[in-house]
């Protein structure tokens, strides 16, 4: 075991650079392949777009070198790969005539998101500062989640009221609530963990929490249900509640929370089924997808079934970028972009992308495992759960494992707000992993008794070793009265 080498953690930025080059080759290569297949010549536009992507990724890399040298080296290449593939596929779907200029918008949003993430990295410096924003984050989350139902601001698209429009731009504020709720849950549980952990009645193998400790869980459930009822957004409701249950489970390592969470989800599902038409419709589509009547009806199972056909059409190696017909599926470049990849890159391509998500998730968790403070651990785990729940809900919905809902696959799908939120999450996790892997630096304390100051002589040592280091001891005595503020090696 190379233990001696591990004592000094390496920044590993060079590995990141190599992986980043491969990542950019994949993203830009996919883009060029689309062009080769659907246009006769690769014109200047392709090189400009590729250049923009490469410049952004390399700038991000340099920012990491300067600001978070010990950050995880694998996160950025994975994210750049997924983002690049997403842009290429959106670009490919622009050729079908159903969509217009979405790829350019996506590229613009990628630039905005990456710049925002870089700014967050550079300005925040230490994720622990977010802990002070625990309750502000809760307030911000509620505002963000309920902004779309403010009259005049909200917009109803495809049955879900999750958009706001400011001038010509539309934005999905709920996406940012993923981050703020993650901060709130992590901060809240880092503060109250002991209380929740110690109190409770033991029944069999489980320790049931007290009723008053259930309060926050109930609040989270209410928020989730509120989101569901008010915005008609099944996926986000599931994600927020799953986030809270996962974070509280990690904080307390009590299996009872998972059980209680499961009960709440079941109750929520029953309630939703009873009272929300939208949810009932999704359930019906899920259960009777291949029913002819269901297939033909408006808002029926056409999208889901065509998606399944598309995946089947892709086979093992796919039809090739630009050779399939993913545009048959509604919303092929956002909700259903996984289908488009499954059809054109085949099982090999799509499974590679899912493995990339898996590695990304494990890197998020690794950042949480490595960091030393509770808040950072819980935040990293929460953000990891957000990522994995999104992927599960999207891919599960498309492959008919669970009912479909309105989440989009992170980094791939067209949509600026989701992209922005996910890139900000990347910045946060990179900061946490930097804190986890960097060698310890001095905290905010004064070196009043450090090297050369009073009280550093050990009586034991004097007795056993005699006057072995007379020079050093003299030096210590001479400096004795001076607290020596410039001591230590705090260059």
């Amino acid at each position, binding site marked *: 075991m190379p233990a001696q080498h591990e004592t000094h953690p390496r920044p590993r930025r060079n590995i990141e650079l190599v*992986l980043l080059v491969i990542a950019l080759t994949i993203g830009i290569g996919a883009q060029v392949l689309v062009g080769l297949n659907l246009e006769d010549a690769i014109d200047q536009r392709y090189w400009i777009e590729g250049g923009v992507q490469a410049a952004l990724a390399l700038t991000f890399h340099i920012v990491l070198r300067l600001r978070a040298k010990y950050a995880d080296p694998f996160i950025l290449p994975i994210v750049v790969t997924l983002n690049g593939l997403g842009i290429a596929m959106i670009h490919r779907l622009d050729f079908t005539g159903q969509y217009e200029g979405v790829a350019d918008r996506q590229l613009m949003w990628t630039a905005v998101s990456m710049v925002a993430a870089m700014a967050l990295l550079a300005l925040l410096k230490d994720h622990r500062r977010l802990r002070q924003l625990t309750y502000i984050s809760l307030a911000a989350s509620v505002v963000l989640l309920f902004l779309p139902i403010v009259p005049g601001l909200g917009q109803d698209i495809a049955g879900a009221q999750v958009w706001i429009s400011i001038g010509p731009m539309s934005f999905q504020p709920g996406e940012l609530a993923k981050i703020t709720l993650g901060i709130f849950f992590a901060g809240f549980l880092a503060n109250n963990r002991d209380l929740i952990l110690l109190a409770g009645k033991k029944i069999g193998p489980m320790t049931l929490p007290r009723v008053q400790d259930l309060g926050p869980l109930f609040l989270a459930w209410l928020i989730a249900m509120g989101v569901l009822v008010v915005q008609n957004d099944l996926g986000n409701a599931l994600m927020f509640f799953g986030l809270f249950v996962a974070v509280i489970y990690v904080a307390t390592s009590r299996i009872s929370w998972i059980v209680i969470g499961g009960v709440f989800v079941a109750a929520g599902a029953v309630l939703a089924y009873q009272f929300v038409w939208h949810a009932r419709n999704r359930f019906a589509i899920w259960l009777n997808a291949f029913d002819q009547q269901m297939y033909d009806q408006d808002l029926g199972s056409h999208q889901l079934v065509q998606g399944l056909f598309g995946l089947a059409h892709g086979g093992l190696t796919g039809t090739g970028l630009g050779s399939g017909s993913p545009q048959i599926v509604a919303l092929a470049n956002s909700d259903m972009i996984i289908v488009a990849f499954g059809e054109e890159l085949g099982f090999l391509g799509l499974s590679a992308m899912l493995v990339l998500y898996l590695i990304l998730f494990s890197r998020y968790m690794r950042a949480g495992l490595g960091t030393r403070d509770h808040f950072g651990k819980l935040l990293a785990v929460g953000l990891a759960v957000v990522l994995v729940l999104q992927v599960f809900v999207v891919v599960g919905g498309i492959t008919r494992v669970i009912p479909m809902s309105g989440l989009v696959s992170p980094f791939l799908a067209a949509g600026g707000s989701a992209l922005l939120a996910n890139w900000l999450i990347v910045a946060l996790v990179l900061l946490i992993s930097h804190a986890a892997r960097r060698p310890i630096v001095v905290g905010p304390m004064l070196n009043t008794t450090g090297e050369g100051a009073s009280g550093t002589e050990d009586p034991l040592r004097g007795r056993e070793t005699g006057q072995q280091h007379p020079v050093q001891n003299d030096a210590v005595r001479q400096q004795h009265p001076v607290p020596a503020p410039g001591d230590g090696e705090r260059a």
Partner: protein
Amino acid sequence: MSELAITVLQFGLLLLLWILILSIIAAQGRDMMVSKRSRTRTQHSSGSTDTAAAPSSTPAAVHHSGQTQRPRPKRLVISEGPLVGTEIELGSTPIMLGRAQECTVVLDDDYASGKHARLFPQGSRWFLEDLGSTNGTWLGDEQLTRASTAEPGDRIRIGKTVLELRT
């Protein structure tokens, strides 16, 4: 471009995707095995000091002689208490132990004070100093009254947490 060339490029893209994945996994190495590693370490902690340590640093007897210019211990391992198995890399700067969030090592221990103790390097040694904690800091069997040297293998007890230096 010919259809064949495009097909070849298409397969090249898929291949490159998997190359990326494999190189990430290869570069990760043992990074994901953190829990397993720290588990084996904690089992060792009751007995000998460290398997990877140099032979010169056998415990107790040699410790306090201070004859050799040994390298300063580079790791701090929590061997008992709520955070058991945690390892902290030590640099050349002092570290603060306690429950307060601004501490370098945040102890999750109800019997520890906010800023409980401080560990600072001098020469080839680490010195441990109590910062006026409520329950005191113990080095081996003695309660600290002033800053003392902490040798690799000494049990540093803070509340219910026991820490050890390792080379």
